[in-house]
């Protein structure tokens, strides 16, 4: 095990301020080995969390996390940083609730302030049927001990005064699902925290290392890949690595990586766009989501409004962003908050989402021995990062899928047992 880095604290800050000393690196740039016990493809939140929990919970430290770019450069750095657990299905609720638990203690667990702002989360209902779905979610949530309830328009106004709750609008606000434990997190910090935590255990974080192929032998497909095969390692842009276990944590690129192992996925890749305004004095205290209007919005402590929407309808790997996203977004935000039309959109960006038919992930072992997936996260990957890492690490360590992910196995697509999260998921942030 590596040397513990100096702890971060107010005292340490003062000491460094006075001595003008340098802080050590949060993670190192190690030399790549020729073999590891586990190779995790994708240096985002999921990959790094998996590596951290492998080391921290299971003592498995001969692990490499490889990324073709820099860590956190994919969806982990491009999402809108909302966390919550008020899902629709019992499987979803249990899973995300564990994730929220981990977020709650993360700052102390990782000794890095991830700036969790537990500010509450409102999912607005503009129609009777949306209100019915909110009730459904609230009831399922309550049964699992999740703080979640339906509130009326006047209560919505108290939670977020800038919302227009008058009833003669095109999309009147009839009520909302209110979820007090939800909130926003400084997303990059989570990535850095896990990277630093994994690095402490000598996990190798290999940036600018692109996986070119996954080596499989004995499979039924071309080149010995595919079902029945066994993983032997990966080829990378910096040379080959032999490893008995290879994990795919590559989100939008999941299909491309999985095809290397001969394991097809029920995934299409769509951009998910987001945008941020210039800062202004804080006026929006909570996270606001409208499924009917395809928008979610929160205001950072820096005063910027951060917006997201549903994924683009046309699948593509292109992350240029579109103008119509910003137009529709602005139109819908102003339906909700007509008073903010003078705020300016500062920047738009997009990330890639690995969408599944039932808006639920594909996790765990696959028909290729030693090849595991943690994909299909669609627009939910950030919320799930900690628990995905924890359960995937458990799955790797024990060899069998962890209980919390038993509903998310790849076999459900051949057995026809899809997860029912789609109903609540049109824009679920």
């Amino acid at each position: 095990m590596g040397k513990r880095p100096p702890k971060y604290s107010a005292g340490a800050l003062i000491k460094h301020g006075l001595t003008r000393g340098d802080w050590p690196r949060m993670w190192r740039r190690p030399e790549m080995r020729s073999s590891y016990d586990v190779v995790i493809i994708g240096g985002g939140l999921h990959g790094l969390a998996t590596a951290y929990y492998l080391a921290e919970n299971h003592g498995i430290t001969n692990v490499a996390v490889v990324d073709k770019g820099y860590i956190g450069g994919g969806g982990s750095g491009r999402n809108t940083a909302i966390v919550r657990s008020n899902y629709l299905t019992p499987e979803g609720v249990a899973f995300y609730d564990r994730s929220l638990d981990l977020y709650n203690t993360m700052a102390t667990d990782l000794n890095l302030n991830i700036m969790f702002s537990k500010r509450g989360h409102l999912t607005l209902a503009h129609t009777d049927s949306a209100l019915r779905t909110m009730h459904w979610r609230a009831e399922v949530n309550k049964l699992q001990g999740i703080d979640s309830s339906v509130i009326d328009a006047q209560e919505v106004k108290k939670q977020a005064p800038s919302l227009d709750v008058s009833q003669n609008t095109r999309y009147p606000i009839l009520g909302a699902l209110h979820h007090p434990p939800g909130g926003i997190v400084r997303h990059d910090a989570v990535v850095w925290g896990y990277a630093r935590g994994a690095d402490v255990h000598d996990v190798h974080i290999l940036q600018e290392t692109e996986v070119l192929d996954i080596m499989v032998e004995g499979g039924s497909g071309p080149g010995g890949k595919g079902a029945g095969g066994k993983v032997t390692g990966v080829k990378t842009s910096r040379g080959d690595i032999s490893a008995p276990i290879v994990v795919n944590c590559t989100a939008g690129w999941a299909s491309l990586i999985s095809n290397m192992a001969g394991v097809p996925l029920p995934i299409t890749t769509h951009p998910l766009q987001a945008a941020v305004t210039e800062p202004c004095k804080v006026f929006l205290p909570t996270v606001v989501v409208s499924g009917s209007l395809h928008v979610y919005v929160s205001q950072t402590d820096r005063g910027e409004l951060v917006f997201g929407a549903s994924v683009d309808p046309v699948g593509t790997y292109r992350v240029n962003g579109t103008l119509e996203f910003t137009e529709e977004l602005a139109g819908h935000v102003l339906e909700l908050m007509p008073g903010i039309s003078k705020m300016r959109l500062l920047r738009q960006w997009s990330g890639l989402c690995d969408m599944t038919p039932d808006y639920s992930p594909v996790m765990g072992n696959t028909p290729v021995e030693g090849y595991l997936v943690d994909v299909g996260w669609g627009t939910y990957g950030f919320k799930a990062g900690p628990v995905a890492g924890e359960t995937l690490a458990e799955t790797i360590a024990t060899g069998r899928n962890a209980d919390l992910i038993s509903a998310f196995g790849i076999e459900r697509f051949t057995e026809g047992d899809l997860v029912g999260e789609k109903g609540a998921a049109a824009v679920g942030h």
Partner: protein
Amino acid sequence: MSNRLTAQPGEIIDRSTSLSFTWNGKAVTGHQGDTIASAIAASGVDVFGRSMKYHRKRGILTADHWDPNLFVQVGDEPNVRAGSRRLEAGMVVSTQNVWPSLEFDLGAANQLVGRFLSSGFYYKTFMRPKFLWPLYQKVLKKFAPGGRIHWETSTHDAYDKRYVHPDVLVAGGGPAGMGAALAAADNGASVLLVEQYGDLGGHLLWGDDAQRAQGADLAAACRAHANIEVLVDSTVTGRYDHNWISVMQRSHDIAPERLIKARAGVMVVAPGLVERPYVFAGNDTPGVILSGAARRLINLWAVKPGNRAVVMSANADGDAAVADLERVGVEVVAVLDARKGESIVSVEGKSRVSKVALSDGRTLNADLVVTATGWTAPTSLLNMAGDRPVYDATAARYFSNSLPSNILATGGITGDGSTAELEAHGRATGVLAANRALRRRHDRVAQTARSNDPAWDKPAEMADSRTPLNRVPHPECYRSTTHGMVDFSEDVSSKDLIQASKEGFDSIELMKRYTTVTMGPSQGKLETVNAAAVLAEANQVSMAEIGTTVWRPPFAPITLGALAGRIHEPVRRSALQDWHDAHGAAPLLAGQWVRPDHYGDPMGEADNVRNNVGLIDVTPLGKLDLRGPDVSKLLELVYVNKWSKLDIGRVRYGTMVAEDGVVSDDGVTGRLGEYHWLMTCTSSGAGAVWEMLEDWLQTYRPEWQVHVTAVTGGLTSINVAGPHSRTLLERIVEDVDLSADAFPYFSVRQGTVAGVSDCIIWRIGFTGELSYEVHVPSGHALHVWEELLAQGEDLGCRPFGVEAQRILRLEKGHYIVGQDTDGLSKAPTAGLGGLVKLDKPDTIGLPELKAAYERTDLPILVGVQTDDPEIVPEEAAQIVDGGSNTILGRITSSRMSPTLGRSVCLAQVDPSLAAAGSSITVLLADGRRVTATVQEHHAHVDPEGARQRV
């Protein structure tokens, strides 16, 4: 104390005007042509605001749109760029980000502890004790920069949009851009020329006499050219795939901002260059300005920027600034030539520069420091087109690398030159742009059905034979021997960046995320190159190895109002909706339709249908006219049940599933003639069903002869329901025998209703009563509706709304797709048992249907009644396993039944609970657990259907 100079030869202010406004409550005047900043500076103000983190005093830096220190509040508009916003009379201008005042700001205390607030400090603290973190957060929030949005009183103003299709769009109205526009227009292209500032001319506007004259001539030629539309005070804000280009037009009569969406054949990018600040200790002190700022202040607005100046110059623009300063009487106490390695080390001063330390060891008294240390090429629009710029160490700036054929660059971002050379390069670019654009236009015209064939020959492809502009050598001067501000809007210093790199944030993107450098309102226009230079220094590599961050749209921020524009959210209205409005109907927005929810008493309306007769407007019901010999084959394919043997004059209920077996839509379809059918489907599903039918007919069964026509709005659908419905219709239907024998349940007839021919009447019963659905050609629908009410007055005929219909259908146990079924509900769940035919050769979703009927674990839809009849469980109330929290189903629909005087429900339950008589536990929203009993039928009222078959 006024800093306004005597008249300057190139000034753009109109001294005959006087515009009064206020600055932090004090009355100030300026002239037409002033920016907010120039007018305030002319009045003698040095300090315009405070910096974000340390609340240091800040003054003019660049005096243009990108000036990070000139963000002000104007009335209810925050974050106004005082450096470019034209002054208007009556503006109420104030500082942002200060408390309590600009002069005395408590936030400035942060300067004292600045050494502890290095980049990312917040990640390293406030973790313990945990309960204090929310309090820290409140403090952090107080430091949010920016102005105040007046959300309480502001409204969404009349913004606006417009589409344009120019052959060539030119971004930038300097000499190169104007040259390009003129040449493209001369060569037959339609041109949209977009200039960010108030007038065409670019840097020529603040140049010498000859430059100004050249600029004026070019501008006049552009404005006079029939093929050129000129937009000033407008910005090209984004370039998206296939040259979809956004332009923000300001200062239009009808809107504060207008979004113009252009599909351009070719875009010519000619934004000129952005001057770069120099990094040294105190470089953000008021009085430290860039050479461009000095020249603009003096030449455009006749504002004297200071009295004793030190100038550091690395280029001709810096030299020109020295000349300008001396011309207007500023004492230039030292000129440091950066080309010889001379530089500024640091400045001192709080509200204004007072002392300047030079690299030769001297310290001079001065109140003005002017730097001219090079350029940033604002390549944003090129980045958006896929270009990744490459650093040229000789010219000390970035140049584009590879551009798609529909993007061309010219002017300063491609190289250096005299006005004539820039214009010439622009003109050559314009000729090439016209050639490419006209070739595209020719293709477009030829491929478009509505156009005539092009009446002109497609031009031959022209090679790019432009003579490149020179790249004049420029010293690489980014940072002095001291540390200073790199990102002025984010308060990020070169020291912060070096520390970040040492902590592992050693790629430009990670460094950006950790330190927030380049993330502020100018999005890196001023900071990117200096940040890359500092990172290169920290990593001890060359600039070329660092790369740059990706510049994302928009090029300049856009108001949400402009992006939204005028909001077009269509609403669909039936031909009777005006009548409903006039008769007190509560409107219900259902998808795009507005419908009558009720007319004041939904329970009474339902009751009236059970006892007398009611009318409901059900026009939103999706309706498709199907004609042809193969319609029955199509119906066999898209419905789960049998259709081949439906007789003429009969209607049948059908359910559709998707290929995955999940219930997708339902409705009744009737056979009007041998080859003529009318299909109905759900209101929300109508569009999808139509597209699905077309897909099958076009893609998979092109040999079938079927024509599908959507007739939803063309037929106004009136359901006449209740025991007196036949009596009523007999009074106004002329040519149809309505007797029970002649017109039995589930039949269709065509006839004349209230004198209106070509009506379709079918006898069906969603409400469970004797009822007829009359489809009337919509131009005559109001007449028929009013006749029905008039003729039915003695029968108690009254309209009823959607809520009464919901009650009635639930009493009758009819399920609603999407409410009583969900995204996983397959045919067995909906209880379609007897209906589904699995022995067809093909039906959509057939393999999944077969598989579903093999299963015994799918939930089942059942009728449910609570044991306490007064309790109406909420829709979505969960059905649980006794006292445990295991979910075994949910209530999907519930209402109090006026007919039965008790609550009635539909529910999806686990198959173990589906048998009639099963007792179930329902968890109410208030936490109570109540028992209920599963019924034998979905229908609570008249399960045998006797009432509708009379």
